[in-house]
């Protein structure tokens, strides 16, 4: 049974920074996403468009309509951020299911002996990546709240001296903003990491000729989609709550 590590392993060091296997994989995914984006942009202005363009465009329109049902007329201001969240998380989750991710090993010199660590690791199975996404999400919620209601209008939700009940509610609101970061980060990390552990363990508890991993692979495809949906939908719901006037 392979060694399961809860944190991403360093592959090499560049100028003192540890290059982990998850960051290597996220750079590869970023390049693929960039190629898709450039091809989409090129097709959007061309006179005869390819089938790829229509496929991608259809899914983008579906995502837009989904967020329109939450954000209504504010959708155009936030779709760039929330759509990017959705597409980024979805691609990272699905790329992490490709064969070779987690199973290609590479030898790394550590002290005297050589450790064998996976060359690739799904980016969302690394807590640092999901924590970064969560911080971006929560900071953009605060910034959009300030942009829509003004600094004093927004801060009134947290610091309110009008009566004792509102003051206590304000403290609870401050705590809930911080717990949003934790819950965003752990939800995504937990789901994706648990999926990887599950598939690894299932592959080893049945004989090799039974493809028992396959149904779980389909489940993980579904979980990856749902988690991308949940992350971006929750961000849009929180943005909608932050930008509308409190009663």
């Amino acid at each position, binding site marked *: 049974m392979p060694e399961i590590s*809860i944190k991403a392993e360093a592959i090499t060091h560049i100028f003192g920074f540890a290059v982990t296997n998850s960051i290597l994989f996220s750079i590869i995914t970023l390049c693929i996403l960039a190629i898709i984006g450039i091809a989409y942009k090129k097709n959007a202005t061309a006179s005869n468009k390819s089938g790829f363009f229509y496929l991608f465009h259809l899914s983008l329109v579906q995502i837009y309509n989904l967020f329109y*049902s939450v954000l209504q007329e504010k959708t155009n201001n936030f779709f760039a951020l929330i759509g990017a969240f959705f597409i980024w998380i979805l691609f990272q989750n699905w790329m992490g299911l490709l064969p070779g991710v987690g199973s290609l090993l590479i030898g790394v010199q550590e002290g005297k002996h050589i450790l064998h660590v996976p060359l690739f690791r799904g980016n969302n199975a690394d807590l640092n990546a999901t924590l970064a996404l969560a911080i971006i999400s929560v900071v953009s919620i605060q910034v959009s709240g300030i942009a829509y209601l003004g600094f004093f209008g927004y801060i009134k939700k947290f610091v309110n001296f009008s009566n004792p009940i509102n003051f206590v509610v304000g403290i609870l609101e401050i705590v809930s903003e911080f717990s949003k970061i934790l819950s965003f980060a*752990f*939800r995504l990390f937990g789901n994706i*990491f*648990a999926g990887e552990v599950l598939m690894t363990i299932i592959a080893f508890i049945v004989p090799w000729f039974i493809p028992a991993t396959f149904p779980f692979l389909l489940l993980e495809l579904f979980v990856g989609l*749902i988690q991308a*949906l949940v992350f971006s*939908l*929750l961000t849009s719901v929180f943005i909608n709550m932050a930008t509308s006037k409190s009663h």
Partner: protein
Amino acid sequence: MTGEAAKLIATALAIGIGAIGPGIGIGMIGSKAAEALGRNPEAESAIRTAMILAIAFAEAVAIYALVVSLIIKFT
């Protein structure tokens, strides 16, 4: 009882007990959503969005238990 055995029991208990509450919660959310759908079939998309959000919140609790048990197991 050795330390290793205590660790294994702790792992199983953490996820086993932690999954009870979210399981009940998700079941209730699903049943209520189906009920609402039966009463008002036109509101399917709104119900689906609210249901997925509520399930995500309930599921997060189970995921915390899972993360705790994974940390106990692998550290």
